């Protein structure tokens, strides 16, 4: 634990900010005016929006490689929300494409080993991916008769995944920017593949599942 002092915007007098293992908060609320307290609440709310994670992920129906930021929250930090931007090379099409993903993770269990490692035997969640390009549409263009194609859109896909993770924790005396690093894999599929599997028994689970690999860096 270390302590820094920073000028308080409200009163000009120093307020103490404690940075502990997991969170940053402003202490010493005694003798503050309602205005000071409101400023603190305001800061806390915006503090919540500081990304705590950097993520890179390979494959997973969101591009070949995705980079993004993440937030973790919950009593045991069991929830994570990621915002990822993916790059999809052109392959047999006319040009490369960008994708954007909003991902919600749930990690129910964490097993610690000597403050050096931890293992999360299950991570699961869903993510929405959108791909940019004129050939994709979110809603059926007007050229089609009503409900012509009986599925949602060619632009937005809903994916579901399960996976596992292992985390290496940086010793406290050696930390610079990185609190811990997590390697993970996920097995995922998306809505139109699930639909195809339910429509025809010859489409197997193995046909529609894909593997993705990733690294998460926890900053704070």
């Amino acid at each position, binding site marked *: 634990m270390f302590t820094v002092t920073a000028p308080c915007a409200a009163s000009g007098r120093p307020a103490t900010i404690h940075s502990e293992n997991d969170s940053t908060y402003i202490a010493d609320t005694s003798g503050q005016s309602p205005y000071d307290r409101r400023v603190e609440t305001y800061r806390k709310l915006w503090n919540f929006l500081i990304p705590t994670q950097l993520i890179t992920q390979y494959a997973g129906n969101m591009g*070949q490689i995705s980079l993004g930021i993440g937030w973790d929250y919950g009593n045991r930090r069991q929830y994570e929300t990621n915002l990822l931007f993916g790059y999809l090379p052109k392959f047999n099409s006319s040009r490369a494409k960008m994708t954007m993903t909003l991902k919600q993770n749930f990690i129910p269990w964490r097993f610690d080993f000597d403050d050096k490692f931890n293992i999360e035997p299950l991570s699961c969640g869903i993510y929405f991916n959108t791909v940019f390009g004129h050939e994709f549409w979110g809603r059926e263009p007007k050229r*089609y008769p009503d409900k012509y*194609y009986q599925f949602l859109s060619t632009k937005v896909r809903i994916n579901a995944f399960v996976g596992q993770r292992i985390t290496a924790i940086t010793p406290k005396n050696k930390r610079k920017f990185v609190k811990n690093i997590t390697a993970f894999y996920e097995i995922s599929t998306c809505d139109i593949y699930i639909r195809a599997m339910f*429509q025809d028994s010859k489409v197997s689970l193995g046909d529609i599942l894909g593997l993705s690999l990733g690294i998460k860096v926890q900053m704070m």
Partner: protein
Amino acid sequence: MKVKTLLHGIAISVLLYGCGDLFDFHPYDTRFNGEQNINANNIKRIEADCLNKDTLTIAFISDTHGSYGDTEDMVDDINNRNDADFVIHGGDLTDCGTTKEFIWQRKRLAKLRMPYVALIGNHDFLGTGNEVYSVMYGNTDFSFIAGRIKFICLNTNATEYDYLAAVPNFDFMETQILSDTELFDRTIVCMHARPYSEQFNNNVAKSFQHYILRFPGIMFCLNGHDHCLQEEDIYGDGLIYYGAPSASRRSYLLFKITPTEYHHEVIYF
């Protein structure tokens, strides 16, 4: 120790899983290995096999999208009857135009013992589907000659282009009317969506009829798209449009063409 065991477990399961197509980049990633230019490759075989044949037997199948089991049974049925010289697929290989669906369909159709060609259907345009089709199968308008009959395969999915493209392509039709006339006496025109369907550019339906009737010895037209059995003289000019049912209806059309006439049959499997 536990960590090591778990890591080994993960490594082994990843390796086991590696037998298949491991990583999915995107449903519309257009990433695939294996056969390309299927139509051109198979047309070479068809033209060589049928060069001096005076009687042809053709299976016309269509709209196999999403019906992989039915497509497998249909392929088995065509293989078992052993009389078809080649197979024409009337389009709609996929439901959503995803690259995986094209691969799944190609795997089933590759089991055909005789060569096949596939037209592009409106569903095959979705997302990057038309780009996969172009590499996997080839041009959306194409033709070939088998036993002195010219087969014209046309892209008629005008709605997919918002009517902005030359679909149907009259220039292509004109070229086909005028070229290689010494090599064929009769013509069969194949398309996915027939005139007056919601995919066709019906503003030019009459012009289309005009061009069709200019083909030397025009016999009949074939179409898919409507998922039901059709046999109709659309324009009242004596030219019959035969529509093949979808694979899910578990039937297809079989045409036997002799030098003077043709017979058709609906095959249920």
